[in-house]
């Protein structure tokens, strides 16, 4: 791999990270990673109407309520963030 390629890939990655929160990076911790996955999943559930309907049938709630529940869950999908270790 040439040096210019590596530079190129890095800049692409940076671009992606700027554009999409969920891209991830080398220093991501377990909690952030899990939160990204959960939020992506909920976003997909809300975005795909058939899936949302499918969930709302299973839960016997209205589609509007189901959407609201998922949006609320996106706030803190994995609970509060762990306390940072002081270094």
């Amino acid at each position, binding site marked *: 791999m040439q040096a210019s390629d590596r530079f190129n890939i890095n800049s692409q990655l940076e671009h992606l990270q700027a554009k999409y929160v969920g891209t991830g990076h080398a220093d991501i911790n377990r909690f952030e990673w899990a939160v990204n996955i959960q939020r992506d999943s909920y976003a997909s559930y809300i975005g*795909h*109407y*058939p*899936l949302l*309907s*499918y969930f*709302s*049938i*299973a*839960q*016997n*709630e*209205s*589609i*509007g*309520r189901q959407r*609201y529940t998922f949006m609320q869950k996106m706030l803190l999908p994995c609970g509060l963030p762990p306390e940072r270790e002081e270094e």
Partner: protein
Amino acid sequence: MLVTVPGGADGPSGVLVCAENFVIYKNQGHPDVRAVIPRRADLPAERGVLIVSAAMHKTKNLKPEEFKLFFLLQTEYGDIFKVTLTDGGGDRVSELNIKYFDTIAVAVSICVLKSGFLFAASEFGNHALYQFKGIGDDDNDVVASSASLMETEEGFQPVFFLPRRLKNLVRIDPVESLMSIMDMKVSNLFEEETPQIFTLCGRGPRSSLRIMRTGLAVSEMAVSKLPGIPSAVWTVKKNVMDEFDSYIVVSFTNATLVLSIGETVEEVSNSGFLDTAPSLAVSLIGDDSIMQVHPNGIRHIREDGRTNEWQTSGKRTIAKVGSNRLQVVIALNGGELVYFEVDVTGQLMEVEKHEMSGDVACLDIAPVPKGRLRSRFLAVGSYDNTIRILSLDPDDCMQTLSIQSLSSAPESLLFLEVQASVGGEDGADHPASLFLSAGLQSGVLSRTVVDTVTGLLSDARSRFLGLKAPKLFPIILGRKCAMLCLSSRPWLGYIHQGHFLLTPLSYETLEYAASFSSDQCLEGVVSVSGEALRIFTVERLGETFNQTVIPLRYTPRKLVLQPKRKLLVVIESDQGALTAKEREAARKECFEAAQTGENATGSEDQMENDGEDEDQGDSLSDEHYGYPKSESDKWVSCIRVLDPRTGNTTCLLELQENEAAFSICTVNFHDKEYGTLLAVGTAKGLQFTPKRSLTVGFIHIYRFLDDGRSLELLHKTQVEGVPLALCQFQGRLLAGIGPVLRLYDLGKRRLLRKCENKSFPISIVSIHAYRDRIYVGDIQESFHYCKYRRDENQLYIFADDSVPRWLTASYHIDFDTMAGADKFGNIFFARLPQDVSDEVEEDPTSGKIKWEQGKLNGALNKVEEIVQFHVGDVITSLQKAALVPGGGECIVYGTVMGCVGALHAFTSRDDVDFFSHLEMHMRQDNPPLCGRDHMAYRSAYFPVKDVLDGDLCEQFPTLPMDLQRKIADELDRTPGEILKKLEELRNKII
């Protein structure tokens, strides 16, 4: 949910924030105005009220201090509230009022039309259009106001109300929606020509069983018995200018009956018709006279009652007749054609005679083109399997213009003229053309395009309609010409949105038909079948299916058919609802409370309304208002035996004590003591949050009594999980209970465990069995192929899938192949490679030794995915079925969004090549509106494999003509050929 408040001249601007339980008005530099959303009195305290849809409407008819607009907000329970804002001067809002308006089914979106209608797009079930009767000016309705908002120690004081019948809205028209299809079975229970599709649709109180048949629905206007068996029927006007038909003429084998159409249809004798002979044709000739053709001549009845008679010479009789308004051609026995024209005085004149080589099978004259005196084309069908087009022009009269040879002798011919349409009412865009349709004795309908100048026939298409030779009749539909084809069932050929559609009618076999127009029925059809005269109309043009709806009580889960007894068994279950008994009790309590409350306020009008409500019975009001909610860990469920023919429920067992049914199957155990039994898998106290848990699961075994019409519980067997899948296997019962596959045998008091395999990943959701193989579908991990070894009494997995699939539907295709659908909207076929399959079958240990050496948890063999397609909708049921007789089988699927689709297998490589090229061109030249890449969409989760998107290919006719030609050129074909191919393919499926 946010709702914008218009600013400027219309209102104060700002926004309504619909939070749980509250509506808050917010604007920049404006204090919040907050009001509580009224709650239903029977709502459990733990539940909030959420707004799910909203609409805004500007109106003048409000109180003077209010802004001239109001909002309609619908809650998740279906109640609509009217929100008005009080003007506090200087664009300030001093008060926000929420008033109960009406209750309709929960909508995804509501829209107020300027013409005084409300359209509600329901989230499940039929959509509806409502008309406003009032705008909620009644002061008796519950109001929650920001001014009277009370804050107590426990939060804000709630406002309660009771839902009532519609007061401000009237339902005008529904739009049918199948959403959501929970289960589907295709079967020919009614022994009709094509199978019926039984779908379980909807949710909760709006759920239903819908029986769908291919074809258009027919609404019957009248049936009357005739004295004898009629052979033909016509309708005729007295004058060209008349709007409605004047007579119905019915011909019997030796007489003709004339009925006059007025307020009622009555027999008349002074019409001038010859009633002692059968008729061959009756029609309007010239401007105001009627022609009756009988075997011995033509009777021409003038307006003033004079009749002229043309007699055949000698013993020859008239065999066939073809006519339009100005021309008549008769065929005599032996094959002589005699041609008549109407001259300027309205007299019928013989013009030409022509001898054909043999008897004439049928003939028809094209309609007179606008502005012309005659039509040029006469089509004559002969028994030597040909159709000849003869010219009727004076200079080359009776010259053959073209010949078409057919596969069998034609029985009936019809010219159908299609008027040119450019961006017409239906948005269609097509040039004028003339079609010649021929019903052949083999039951095939052939349709060709006639060149309007030269008379040459081209672009022949044919379709098998039924076992009888189709007879063709012109009728009028939507002020356009259409064609009725009567074979062993009636078909309707008509133009809809620029497409020619040929659709069966869901009606009886008919013998003869004619269009019918009267005061009561503008565009009807009068027909004869057996001894009856039937008048009907065809509605809802453009639909492929017509449905019969049978309402159900709770969300239907699964359906089994009993083909022999022609009965259905349905299981229904609902979470967070009350049983019928509890509901009844709650309802009573509520009304008592309401009535005492109203006595105090002295509102009599409301009481009457409530009284009616009570009388109305459960089903209707529930469908409208929804079930009252209860705690989320409550379940209600029932097992229902239905007779689909009558729509009656013959047996309904409501499960008690928080038990809910999830799976069902019929099973024949080894000892044939009881015959076919019904197994139902249930769970008690199932909860999804915080973690899936349940008190206990059961498998119920029921016995059919009373010829399958009712059920009796034999015994219940307790199991540790939810039995989500049940299947009969070699005279025993296979049950998937969580990750365990277990084989049960029937005992006296309970089921007896015979064998089990606990090594399935998450939870078994489907089991199919074929010979000694068992195909198990996991909720998350796709298919597992298992075998049962009887001698060692062992179940083991010999193959599984390498892809995680969240299965929602599965279907067994053949020994090595399964079709499945996953939660993310993909459909796929998984197949065990042939060599692996052979190896497994030949191995005396059946791969068991290898299985025991299993590595890394997976099975030894892997199935391959041979077909892959992203449908974009969660498929809930799959089935293999042939929807048209002789059309071959296809995979029919039903989805959560209420769509029924089909996958059809190509049989020739040529077709595959052709359609994949067409698809490729369509992808390039017809990008979707939103700019997504078609290939990327169909490959959203897995790359699309060996599936062509028929929907995309069918958009070909909608392309502009030059683009169509360009694509056709690249495919080395003409656009017509491509259309023909598309039509042929469609005809194979439906």
